[in-house]
């Protein structure tokens, strides 16, 4: 009798679980943003297919995403200030809030409890509980004598429940330390340079680097220093040379680290800068096809894949990080805007916006393995990001 009852209970619970979510891991899942229709496609990188689609996410131009530390939920940051929490297993929207008028990106704390969003309007950073999306803190980016609000860019997480972000209009970098159960404490770095437009943190959480639009060089902070300060790196780069017009701001987020070298897009030039990963001194340049937008290292660091700004955005080049040679060049199609590697780098997914396609390539043979139709795809984000600092 007892046994019989147990059997029924087990049967009933497993049916419920199966209905709610297929019993599977999320380590090979991810999302692709369909920017024009306000949707994301949930994809499987093992099967190389779409699992489901979540709609109603608002204006997703320039959208980005971070993942919960268990890799089950994606937090999608929309241009219109929307913050959406998506369940990858059930393929559903858990909650969506509109937290500001105009926003640019977000981050999640190392303990997974805080989601931070950087806003253009009203300029500042807002924090939310990752479980409920209830607001927990707000840091307006007020600067100068008039307390004007600056647009905020380059928001990243750092170890120890810290976040760093950059004030575009003010030319400042702020670090917010948000202890569990406390209130955020802010450290400000002023006069970092003119018009910092984006920033990144290295994968070890040690170096924060902001790109400057208005000046040559980049602003750098070593977070491991006893007393971190801002210093200028690569300040000689580009001096006296005529810059080309910049049709799309390069992204620093994908900054490629390959062994002891780093590769980054030079603003307004058809070049990648190669720098020493410990001294941040320039050690070389690679002439490339156009103005680079993303330079992303394959996870093993052996190759760097580069895409380009309008009007040369139909092409991708692959650079061998050891001899700095371009070992492969191909044209996936117009507006090949985003690339994401599978966790170990055997494949890369590329969104070809104007062709309404996502293509999947083998990174050894460069063969195209699969093509998935999507509506104006842009950002691609895989759950492996959940386990990486700054992503």
């Amino acid at each position, binding site marked *: 009798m007892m046994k019989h009852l147990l059997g029924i209970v087990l049967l009933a619970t497993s049916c419920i679980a199966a209905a709610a979510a297929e019993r599977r891991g999320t380590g090979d899942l991810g999302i692709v943003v369909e*920017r*024009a229709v306000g949707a994301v496609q949930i994809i499987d990188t093992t099967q190389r297919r779409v699992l489901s689609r979540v709609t109603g996410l608002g*204006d997703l*131009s*320039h959208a980005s995403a971070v993942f919960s530390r268990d890799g089950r939920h994606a937090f999608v940051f929309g*241009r*219109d200030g929307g913050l959406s929490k998506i369940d990858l297993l059930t393929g559903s929207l858990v909650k969506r809030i509109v937290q500001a008028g*105009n926003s*640019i990106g977000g981050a999640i704390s190392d303990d997974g409890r805080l989601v931070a969003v950087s806003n*253009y*309007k009203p300029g500042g950073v807002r924090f939310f509980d990752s479980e409920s999306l209830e607001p927990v803190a707000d840091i307006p980016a007020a600067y100068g004598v008039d307390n*004007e609000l600056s*647009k905020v*860019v380059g928001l990243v997480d750092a170890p120890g429940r810290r976040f760093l972000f950059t004030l*575009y*209009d003010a030319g400042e970098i702020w670090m917010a330390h948000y202890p569990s159960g406390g209130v955020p404490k802010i450290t400000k770095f002023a006069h970092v340079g003119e*018009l910092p*437009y984006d920033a990144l943190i290295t994968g070890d959480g040690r170096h924060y680097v902001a790109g400057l*639009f*208005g000046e040559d060089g980049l602003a750098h902070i070593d977070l491991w220093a006893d007393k971190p300060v801002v210093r200028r790196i690569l300040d000689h780069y580009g001096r006296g040379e005529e810059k080309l*017009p*910049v*049709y*799309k*701001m390069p992204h620093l987020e994908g900054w490629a680290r390959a062994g002891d070298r780093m590769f980054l897009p030079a603003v307004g030039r058809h070049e990648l800068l190669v720098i020493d990963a410990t001294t941040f001194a320039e050690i070389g340049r690679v002439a490339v096809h156009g103005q680079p937008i993303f330079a992303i290292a394959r996870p093993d660091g052996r190759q760097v894949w580069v895409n380009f700004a*309008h*009007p040369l955005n139909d092409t991708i080049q692959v650079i061998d990080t050891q001899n700095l040679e371009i070992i492969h060049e191909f044209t996936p199609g117009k*507006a090949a805007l985003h690339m994401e590697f599978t966790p170990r780098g055997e494949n890369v997914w590329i969104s070809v*916006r*104007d062709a309404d396609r996502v293509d999947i390539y083998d990174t050894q043979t460069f063969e195209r393995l699969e093509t998935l139709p999507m509506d104006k795809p842009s950002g691609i984000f895989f759950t492996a990001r959940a386990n990486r600092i700054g992503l």
Partner: protein
Amino acid sequence: MRAWKSMLSAVVASASIGVALAGVLPDPVRQAELTHLVLHDCGSCHGMTLKGGLGGPLLPANLDHYSSEDVATFILDGIPGKPMPPWRGQLSTQDALWIAEQLKKGFAQ
């Protein structure tokens, strides 16, 4: 901020003379290309719905105080010292004027 706005009006005043008012409209194929360019490529800085991003909003209310020629001049020559790039070379004067007029009317989405 104030400094660049006044610099801007100086630029506009001197440069708008350079924009010849050409009566020729881009043909429908070109218009479709330009619409795409505005929403996606201008949109990467101004927002795909043109409500603003790193660059300010480009809605009719924001451009009211400029003539179409002024707006076309911004597009062709860019804004020195700001990330707004010059599009001359990729866009003809007619293209820029057509975009300017559409922006001032409210760009057909």
